[in-house]
């Protein structure tokens, strides 16, 4: 990539030396450019805006092609991002263009979390690049860069001011991606309203501290045009892929009963300015900013979050790896400790429960014994009673037999006299 070869000249003891003839290294930029051409370029655009603002149409118009896809419905439950990659070629320059669309943005009733999926997507691209960069065996020069280089934020043409959803989303995105705000479907606003609208938008952005992408003005060849363009932000665009005959030319335009809005006419809308800025003048700068500013910021935050710090120069190298190792060991140690703790707690609980159960068992046994004893006692008592009754019965029987014996004897001894006694006895019985 170009950025790895850039050097800061002057200083560090290098003095300028005049050349005595033509050496030939002025072909360096050409060599570099040729290599890049062979390699191809990547450019990734993210379009954020509510459904129906003409995002897909604008992309079609910008790149002069018909991208696939049909218009999305308004009933999405959440914000999803759909990305499509296209390979465009113009003369010998191959461009891998990725257009990411937000589907369902601004359609929900509760829009508090709308920005989250966008932020997550952007972070995921940075993360993928970071992972690749940190690999041991890596192939950075043939890596397909999916980081978002430019975010076109579509503002609805209300004519008043920015919606709070817009402000919140832009605030969340401004440190992660280059934001270029544009006013969509601007043929709905008249010229005077447009000027007021633009001023209102810029002042709102400034007062809320939203950092939108400023076209660079440090390179003399593009400084002038960039600074004038900076004053025209946000661009008011109209997109159209239909062609209408104006005069004797076919131009892209939107036809109304009251007139035709020509897309490429600078008096009608800022489409040409947008195309100039985005593609023809600043594409490389957008890519560079993404890599050197936004990506580095993400990388720094991510690594610091992981707990890595830059140690002083004379400590051991690869503090990254060693800190990682140390952290990992620490983490594993903690994990093991926690496991041990849990295990011990578990064992203890089991023991307690066992003791409890044993107690209960013992009690039950005791109860059982007691009841058994009770039962036996009662049984004994009953048996005794039975025995005593039996004894009584026996005694009675004995008495009875003894009495009968006596009676028989008496009968034999005196017949009638005993009769009376018998009758008396019988009456007695």
């Amino acid at each position: 990539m170009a950025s790895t070869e850039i050097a800061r000249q002057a200083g560090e003891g290098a003095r300028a030396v005049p050349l005595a003839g033509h050496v030939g290294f002025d072909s360096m930029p050409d060599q570099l450019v040729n290599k890049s051409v062979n390699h191809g370029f990547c450019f990734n655009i993210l379009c954020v805006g509510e459904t129906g603002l003409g995002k897909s149409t604008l992309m079609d118009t910008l790149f002069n092609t018909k991208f696939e896809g049909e218009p999305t419905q308004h009933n999405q439950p959440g914000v999803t991002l759909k990305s499509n990659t296209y390979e465009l070629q113009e003369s010998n320059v191959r461009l891998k263009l990725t257009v990411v669309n937000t589907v369902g943005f601004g359609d929900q009733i509760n829009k508090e979390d709308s920005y989250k999926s966008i932020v997550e997507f952007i972070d995921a691209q940075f993360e993928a690049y970071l992972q690749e960069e940190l690999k041991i065996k890596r192939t950075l020069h043939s890596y397909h860069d999916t980081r978002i280089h430019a975010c076109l934020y579509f503002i609805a043409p209300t004519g008043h001011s920015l919606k709070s959803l817009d402000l919140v989303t832009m605030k969340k995105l401004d440190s992660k991606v280059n934001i270029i705000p544009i006013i969509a479907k601007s043929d709905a606003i008249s010229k005077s309203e447009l000027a007021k609208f633009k001023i209102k938008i810029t002042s709102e952005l400034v007062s809320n501290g939203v950092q939108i992408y400023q076209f660079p003005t440090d390179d003399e060849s593009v400084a002038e045009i960039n600074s004038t363009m900076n004053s025209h932000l946000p661009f008011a665009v109209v997109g159209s892929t239909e062609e209408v005959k104006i005069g004797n030319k076919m131009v892209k335009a939107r036809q109304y009963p009251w007139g035709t809005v020509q897309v490429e006419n600078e008096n009608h809308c800022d489409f040409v300015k947008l195309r100039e800025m985005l593609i023809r003048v600043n594409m490389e700068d957008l890519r560079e900013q993404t890599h050197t500013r936004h990506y580095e910021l993400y990388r720094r935050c991510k690594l610091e979050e992981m707990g890595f710090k830059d140690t002083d120069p004379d400590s051991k190298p690869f503090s990254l790896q060693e800190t990682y190792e140390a952290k990992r060991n620490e983490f594993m140690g903690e994990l093991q400790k926690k496991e041990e703790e849990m295990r011990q707690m578990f064992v203890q609980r089991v023991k307690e429960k066992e003791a409890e159960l044993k107690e209960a068992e013992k009690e039950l046994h005791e109860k059982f014994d007691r009841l058994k004893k009770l039962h036996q006692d009662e049984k004994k008592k009953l048996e005794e009673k039975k025995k005593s009754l039996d004894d009584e019965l026996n005694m009675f029987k004995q008495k009875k037999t003894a009495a009968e014996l006596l009676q028989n004897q008496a009968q034999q001894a005196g017949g009638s006299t005993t009769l009376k006694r018998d009758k008396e006895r019988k009456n007695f019985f």
Partner: protein
Amino acid sequence: MELEAEVNVELCQSGPGLQMSLIRGTDLFGYIGIEAVLDQMRSKTMKAGFEFNIMVVGQSGLGKSTLVNTLFKSKVSRKSCTPNYEEKISKTVKLQTVSHVIEENGVKMKLTVIDTPGFGDQINNDNCWEPIVKYVNEQYEKYLREELHINRKRVIPDSRVHCCIYFLPATGHRLRPIDVEFMKRLGKIVSIVPVIAKADTLTIEERQEFKERIRQDLVDNGIHVYPQKEYDEDPEERILNNSIRESIPFAVVGTDKEHQVNGNKVLGRKTNWGIIEVENVAHCEFANLRDLLIRSHLQDLKDVTHNIHYETYRVRRLNETKIIKSSSVNFK
């Protein structure tokens, strides 16, 4: 809140099954201006300038400094025969770096020449390549460390050796053991361009035979010099590089003196039997070397150093310091 993005990120990776529409230039009904990115890139790089680090290795008296001065048409290297140069044969090879900023047609280049006085000059030249190997690896180490910083600079200063010119004395025979040893070791970590120094002592036939024998020796010893066959990216490049490979090592003559030949001022060496024109392709191959190094392959040298040699060093270094030998560091 579903995130379809993960699925679609994979779609974006190059590979089969990719949702890509190839839209050629003829389909575009209008000029977009993608080509302008080339100009943007060009102006950006011109503004930022370039760095190039070249190392010259060879025995004393082979004309290393003269050649570098001739290559870059300026006094970037101090020659040992200048009056106020302290002539001391050092016991070990000590590397000296000198940096200059040269500018041509708006293109600024910071050129660093690394000289190796004392190489091959001792009676016992055992391990004389070690300081050089150490230096090359040190530069890689510096770059790697900077790259791994959390707060790293916007542009990492590049002091890695992009090209090493190895001077072979024009004996006319074959490669000497010291040449073989040095090139074997350094061919793995840096791009070596061997040249035959002071080639005005060889006739054309002797030169051809010498070159044949050297090329044979290189093949026999498994030495890979720049441009390496394995790193050719496409057939066009291969054809170009093959023609270069047919003619290495270049037989060069260096000088900074100008003489009049046929009314023109040319760089040349004047002798009793004629004037050897340095930039005349019929006389010596200096122009070929210059074109290879500067006009056509300068960027390629830097790319090979960055993408291949540096990555090899990085893989080796990262593997040896850690216990984890997985191929990706998982931060999740």
